[in-house]
């Protein structure tokens, strides 16, 4: 009884030192104060060491080098760049290359993953076993080894451009349009003979804008069809209309601007003309997508299996056919389970694309964290910038993910 009273009626006014640890009113403040002090001391200690070391070595921290000419060339560049551009420009080229390979790998990894995940649940014994083998093999071997293996396949198995030369060449172009070499794949590249804008980029923006317009228009058509269906119960046939909306405007535009294809052709040392997709890009792209695809396949399988069997049976009882059951009942629910890990796999792809350094692909790790770092010796600055870039990307992706999670959250009672 005495204890009870002492607990419900804390001593007022009498402050003892032990209350800092024992009294719940102060305890959390005490702990936080201790944590703050330890943290501050640790930061001070590390910062002090850093300053002292830099002083001893006579170095300083400065980002001025970013404005200096980089002095090196990059073969794959999505924006204007030459060896006289600045280091920051080189970093931007690298960033765009990182984003490019990550985007491509995300798309193909999703395709591989979904196909493999669905086939793994197939009632064809052989196919489902084969998919298990694929998943297990790719999940359990480091991605670095896969990148190196696929890059080696690219360089050692594909023919060199000189194999295309001569009267009886060892290798020939596919359909006289595509050349698969160990330096990359050359495909015909589109260009305009009578463009509206001098800058080719703007012409493509125009094409995209027209496509966006088509998208909007087809949306309206679908909306209208739904309205009619709700009133009359019969959905009007709109597919030819939709198809026309997609094809005609863009086709007219391309016709007016004079779309033509530039066929790659062996000139001198290399194929010239058309679009070149570099070997390092292909190796990295393929390795990342096939590796991550194995993980995504597991997610897809788990997502589909997570849907209670009762759901399928209920759909069956309502008379839905298997395909419709999948599309209308299982998948919408499975996506809720599949998408969050899927997004974190996209994040992993972006991070793993930094292994580009093993195959000489000029991503941001290879330009800013590689050649620029080597040439300027500004290790601390370069690594900090590199981390800042990846951090920004992953924060953006997690913001997107949180947004998605909120929007699909089950409205629970």
């Amino acid at each position, binding site marked *: 009884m005495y204890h009870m009273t002492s607990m419900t009626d804390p001593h007022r006014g009498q402050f003892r030192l032990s209350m800092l640890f024992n009294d719940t009113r102060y305890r959390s403040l005490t702990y936080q104060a201790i944590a703050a002090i330890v943290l501050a001391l640790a930061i001070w200690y590390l910062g002090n060491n850093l300053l002292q070391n830099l002083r001893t070595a006579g170095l300083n921290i400065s980002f001025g080098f970013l404005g200096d000419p980089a002095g*090196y*060339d990059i073969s794959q560049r999505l924006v204007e760049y030459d060896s006289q551009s600045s280091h920051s420009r080189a970093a931007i080229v690298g960033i765009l290359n990182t984003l490019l390979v990550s985007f491509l790998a995300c798309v193909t990894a999703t395709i591989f993953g979904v196909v493999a995940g669905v086939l793994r649940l197939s009632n064809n014994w052989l196919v489902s076993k084969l998919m298990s083998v694929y998943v297990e093999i790719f999940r359990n071997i480091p991605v670095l080894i896969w990148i190196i293996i696929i890059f080696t396949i690219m360089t050692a198995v594909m023919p060199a451009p000189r194999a295309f030369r001569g009267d009886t060449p060892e290798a020939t172009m596919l359909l006289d349009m595509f050349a698969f070499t*160990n330096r990359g794949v050359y495909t015909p590249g589109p260009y305009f003979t009578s463009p509206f804008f001098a800058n080719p980029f703007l012409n493509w923006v125009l094409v995209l804008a027209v496509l966006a317009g088509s998208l909007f228009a087809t949306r309206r058509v679908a909306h209208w069809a739904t309205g009619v269906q709700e009133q009359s119960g019969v959905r009007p046939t709109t597919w030819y209309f939709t198809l026309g909306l997609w094809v005609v405007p863009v086709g007219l535009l391309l016709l007016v601007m004079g779309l033509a294809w530039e066929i790659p052709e062996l000139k001198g040392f*290399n194929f010239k003309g058309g679009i070149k997709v570099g070997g390092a890009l292909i190796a990295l792209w393929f390795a990342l997508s096939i590796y991550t695809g194995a993980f995504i396949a597991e997610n897809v399988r788990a997502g589909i299996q997570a849907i209670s069997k009762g759901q399928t049976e209920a759909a069956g009882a309502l008379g839905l056919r298997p395909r419709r059951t999948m599309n209308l009942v299982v998948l919408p629910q499975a996506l809720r389970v599949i998408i969050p890990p899927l997004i974190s796999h996209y994040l992993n792809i972006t991070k793993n694309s930094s292994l580009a350094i093993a195959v000489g692909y000029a991503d941001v790790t290879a330009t800013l964290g590689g050649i620029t770092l080597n040439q300027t010796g500004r290790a601390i600055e370069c690594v900090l910038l590199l981390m800042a870039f990846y951090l920004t990307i992953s924060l953006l992706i997690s913001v997107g993910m949180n947004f998605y999670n909120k929007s699909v959250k089950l409205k629970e009672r």
Partner: protein
Amino acid sequence: MKKSAFLGALTVASIAASAAVAQDASTVDQIKERGKLNCGVTTGLVGFAAPDANGQWNGFDVGVCRAVAAAVLGDANAVEFVPTTGKTRFTALASGEIDMLARNTTWTFSRDVDLKFEFVGVNYYDGQGFMVAKDLGATSAKELDGATVCIQTGTTTELNLADFFRANDMSYEPVPIETNAEAQQQYLAGACDVYTTDASGLAATRATFEDPSAHVLLPEIISKEPLGPLVRHGDNEWGDIVRWTLNALIAAEELGVTSANIGELGASAGANPEINRLLGTEGTLGEMLGLDAEWAKRAIMAGGNYGELFAKNIGEDTPIALARGLNAQWTEGGLLYAPPFR
């Protein structure tokens, strides 16, 4: 109070890693205390620094490390070879992980001044060259317009290459590769037409090919690459020791001191006073460096004089087959010129 606890934790961590040498001493004292010289080398370039099948490091740069170890510690094997990449080498040196760097490093203004290193001399005068397959039929680097070029990154190579092609108004596709082994793989598979790095590195790489004669080095040398060992700014005594050990190797060749006759020449003072001073039978040069009298003798005995090191590791009788060229003694028309020992 807190700080000491933190320091204590670090001390424990460092002891536990059996790697800590914590004292405020000069580099030489630290090396003597440790009993080993930490020498930064490449991760593997045959002829310059590469581990053999038994893990023993061999090569021309390795010879310099061993000579310094012999001079300071009296044991040519008291060297810890630290493999470094183009990226890690400068940090390793600046942070004190290694005492000296002997890794095909080009002496440039910015490395010397901006990165605060001290190049103690040049042990190999090199220049960037090009290697192409013989059946390509190219005879000059000026014919390489449009070629795909493999570059080993982390050197001045990329910059020289960009300058060369820009100056000659040619285009090229750079393929930057981190390690020599992978650059070779690319080049041999025909994914690049040209492989470029320092001419000595090209020769060393070609020597490992299955059929070295199918590849030629183009005559153009597009850059000056004086390669030499370097140390940190700020410890001039240590810099002097490395500098003069290198000079001792060069001077020994000039003076005709070889590992074969050094025992005889160093036994007692002979007719040539400079040899006497070099080998410590006369004068107190060793003492001035803070070493004993026989430092240079040991350095030379470690692997022979400069000429012997050259002949054994990269000379014309080795698979690498480099001619002396610029690296001959000044008396024979080369650039090697050791300042006098007096």
